[in-house]
């Protein structure tokens, strides 16, 4: 039984712009246990998006080690990291969340159908079930462009869950939604977290959103300033 989903040790990230170097992350140590819902908080420019990208295997750290389900990730090629992202991680972004030329159901099924080569019946059924769970079964054949902002985020949440991930990373998932819709989305995430025992790491600067989480990690100036259990 593995209770640690992701472990980060001594993560440093430096960006270079000509001769100028900017160290955004200055040595992050972090453990994400199974089934927890964690808020990653910090002011704009504190490094939380960069950390989220590194933990989501979208960006390589300058130094430090990442371990996903006891598997060290250092030096793995892009194809393997893509496979890990596809099988073990789910993503919900603030913008550009869906593929506009595809229906809600196709968007949900995409991460499972593309690697398999075709849209299998079991993937289609699971996509329908997930859309039903996020309350959008009646919108399954709608193109993404015909959905409202809240509906798009709910489709993105369903898509993040299609491959039953161990960790869902959400970057400001309610950033461009109104209060009422934000609460609906967060209640949905909480419900999924409780039912599926998937770990959620949610980047937010909104206290109301953080209040839905079990734990809070405060990041300041590239370092973890505070970690509280909720």
């Amino acid at each position, binding site marked *: 039984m593995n209770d640690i989903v992701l472990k980060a040790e001594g993560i440093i990230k430096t960006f270079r712009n000509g001769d100028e170097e900017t160290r955004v992350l200055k040595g992050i140590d972090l453990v994400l246990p199974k089934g927890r819902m964690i808020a990653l908080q910090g002011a704009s420019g504190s490094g939380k*998006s960069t950390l989220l*990208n590194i933990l*989501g295997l*979208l*960006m390589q750290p300058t130094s430090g080690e990442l371990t996903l389900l006891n598997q060290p990730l250092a030096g793995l090629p*892009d*194809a393997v990291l*893509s*496979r*890990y*992202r*596809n*099988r073990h*991680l*789910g*993503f919900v*972004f603030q*913008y*550009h*969340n*869906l*593929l*506009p*030329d*595809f229906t809600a159901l196709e968007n949900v099924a*995409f*991460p499972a*159908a*593309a*690697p*398999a*080569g*075709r*849209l299998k019946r079991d993937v289609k059924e699971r996509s329908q079930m997930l859309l039903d769970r996020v309350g959008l079964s009646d919108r399954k054949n709608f193109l993404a462009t015909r959905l409202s902002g809240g509906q798009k985020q709910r489709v993105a949440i369903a*898509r*993040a869950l299609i491959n039953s991930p161990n960790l869902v990373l959400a970057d400001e998932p309610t950033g461009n939604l109104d209060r009422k819709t934000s609460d609906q989305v967060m209640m949905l995430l909480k419900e999924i977290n409780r039912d599926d025992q998937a770990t959620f790491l949610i980047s937010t600067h909104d206290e109301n959103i953080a209040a839905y989480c079990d734990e809070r990690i405060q990041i300041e100036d590239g370092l973890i300033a505070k970690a509280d259990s909720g």
Partner: protein
Amino acid sequence: MLFLSKVALRYLTSNIIQTTLLISGVALSVVVFVFITALINGLALYLTAEVTSKIAHVELEPPNTVSRVLTDNDRFVAAPVSTFRRKQIRNWQQVLELAEKMPGVKTVSPTIDGNAFLTRGEAVLPVAVQGVSPDKIDAMADLSSNLIAGNADLSAGGLLVGVELAEELNLAVGGPVLMRSERGAERLIPITGIFKSGVSSLDRRVAYISIGAARPLFDLPNGVTTISIKLDDPDEAPRVAKALQDATGLKATPWQEKNKTLEEATDAQGRTGVFIQSFAMIAIIISISSALLLSSYRRRAEIGIMRAVGISRRFVAGVFVLQGILIGGISALLGAGLGYQLCVTLASIQGANGRPSLPIAPSEGGYALVITLTIIGAALAAVLPARAAAAVDPVDAIQQ
């Protein structure tokens, strides 16, 4: 359906106007390719057919006399083989029989060739006289279809002349003309017909009589000077010529050897065609590549989402390569169909002389070649956009 195909098709159909314009542009290049290919091949076929319909495909003649080196003690003396003997094929009936049995041979005709002067009043003109079998004249030279006066029946001992020769000597059908052969024989011969082949050297310099009438004129009571052969397929002439030369010992000349300029002209046309075809292919590659490159840039955010959710670079690249192949395939089929229709239409338009105004051959449009080249070209054109799409950094694309 493969999910990759579904994504590629969805991208193509999402902006139907842009895709239609792109396919139309590529199809137009394919039409140009087909048209040029059909025109150049048609022209080559037309010229070849024009030439081969009027001349023998293989000519058998006595071998050339050659100088032979004779030794006289310690001296070398070059001496010609006797030139006192008349060059002729004496056993022509046996050669005729042998040639007629050869596969691919359509007609064989013994011929007596010679030079003569035609005299009418004070006007005298030199002519190349061909004494042919009256029943084979059309098979050999297709004169009946080119007659503008009289008929091509030489069995009564008349003469067929070209229109330019007739005009210069003011000859008319039924009227006599005096022929004086290179052997000094003279004969008054009636004009049976006047032909217009369109080939000036024939219309001005050649006259036909029956082989029977030629014998006393050229003093060849038994032999013939040439055996002319027509084939089912003129392209087979070199092969048949070699086989006949080996079998008879006579000098066999395929028509291609006597018409080198025609081959050079058709080759030059072919090279010009290759240039135009290459430009058409380059236009296809540039159109597809630029359109897909633009698409890969416009869809950066979507590609970023795909990459973020773990879709491989290979899949992303495959979507763009497949789009290129689909555009190429559809455009190639459409362009080939339209090109064929265009060629058929143009080939059916007749000029003032009743012949097609363009010597275009709709069946020779190089359809398989253009479809294959377009699909391969389109796939290659998609490689650059595919690489650009696969290289999209998901973080950059999503944050953009």
